[in-house]
């Protein structure tokens, strides 16, 4: 696995993938749909898939002494690693917004989503959608990128719902500031993490099954 990760990082990855981790910092932009930051992190990962396809990475990897499912595993571990790096950036800045900037006017006067644990849970769901819709879709052919369009549609629907959910009567606690509704917020974050894990596991298993039967 060490050799496989070294290959993903040194040969397959695009430098844009690492740069786009910084998109997690969009969490700090006032009046901006902060959840888009999660999308941009996955856009960075998409560039690595593009890079890998242009470099014949999938066939090269499959010719190495590893199992076919390890090719899938390498892509998933790399993607999860980048997603977690992006999540870490978002989590640190969310804590900053919940503490130091909890009363800051630009964040208080915001029609869109506030950065809080619910936001982090939704970011994880977006990462999970990427793993399920895009990665599992990619491994149907190992060269077509059309699943990325389906992923964009699914993601922006999710972003639209999450960014505006607090305007629905009785759902205002999802937009909590500071440590308000902390119990509920942490439950929502945990639910997001659980959904991320489920989507990723289904995505991985589907990818393995699909990749096993395609001809290269």
């Amino acid at each position, binding site marked *: 696995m*060490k*050799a496989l990760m*070294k*290959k993903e990082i*040194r*040969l397959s990855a695009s430098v844009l993938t690492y740069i786009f981790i910084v998109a997690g910092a969009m969490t700090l932009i006032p009046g901006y749909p902060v959840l888009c930051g999660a999308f941009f992190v996955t856009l960075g990962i998409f560039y690595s898939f593009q890079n890998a396809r*242009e*470099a*014949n*990475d999938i*066939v*090269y990897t*499959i*010719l*190495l*002494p*590893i*199992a*076919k499912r390890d090719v899938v595993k390498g892509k998933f571990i790399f993607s999860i690693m980048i997603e977690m790096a992006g999540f870490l950036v978002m989590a640190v800045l969310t804590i900053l917004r919940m503490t130091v900037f909890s009363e800051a006017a630009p964040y208080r006067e915001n029609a869109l989503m506030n950065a809080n644990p619910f936001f982090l849970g939704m970011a994880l769901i977006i990462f999970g959608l990427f793993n399920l819709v895009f990665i599992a879709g990619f491994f149907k052919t190992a060269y077509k990128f059309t699943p990325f369009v389906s992923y964009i549609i699914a993601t922006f629907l999710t972003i639209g719902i999450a960014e505006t959910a607090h305007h629905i009567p009785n759902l205002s606690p999802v937009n909590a500031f500071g440590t308000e509704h902390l119990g509920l917020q942490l439950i929502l974050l945990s639910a997001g993490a659980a959904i991320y894990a489920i989507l990723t596991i289904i995505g991985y298993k589907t990818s393995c099954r699909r990749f096993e*039967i395609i*001809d*290269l």
Partner: protein
Amino acid sequence: MNIITLENVCKNYPAFSLKNVSFSLEKGKITGFIGRNGAGKTTTIKAMLNLIHLDGGEISYFGLPLLKNENEIKQRIGYSTGTVSWYPRRTLHDIIEVTKGFYRNWNDEECRRYMELFGLDENKKPMELSEGMKVKCNLLIALSHGSEVLILDEPTSGLDPFSRDELLEVFRQLKENGVTILFSTHITSDLERCADNILYISHGEIRADAAKSEFMERYGKPDETLEEIFLRMERENKK
């Protein structure tokens, strides 16, 4: 001793089928794999590398079925193609550094030796290399992990006559060391110089599998070259 065995290998595509391809390769022999474009050479090679799914038949290396022993078998075989380049924007040094981590028998000394022999610069990127140098690049990797079997898809394509001669000499040396080589080519004069056996495929079927001398005797006319025999057989198959 047979190192590779293919038994009734079948693969069906909408416009092409590989039909009951069966042959075996002996240890320490060079086998030339000939056939015109689209005859099934690359499909057979892809099947041998488990890049495609078979509709029937079985492939084994060293007496071990490929599907059940893929990792172990891949540790012991090398592959090169003359037409595809890997990671065009990474340096050869990076590609080698990463690739060696997958092979338990990787030999840095051999790698350096072949790099020198092939005139490769490890700081160059595949995109900066000519087609011939790309072939050498692929071969360098295939040869540096102590492969017992080399499967080479048109390895001499794009090489100048001098480089081809060098490469054929490398093949002969490897053969002396017991390495089994299968190489597909359109340059039949290369086979005249180094092949022990000839495998001829046409329309997805193996039409001839024999020692080179036997092949020339059975299918050729006096003073006919391998290329002339190949062309005549193809014309006859067309009729």
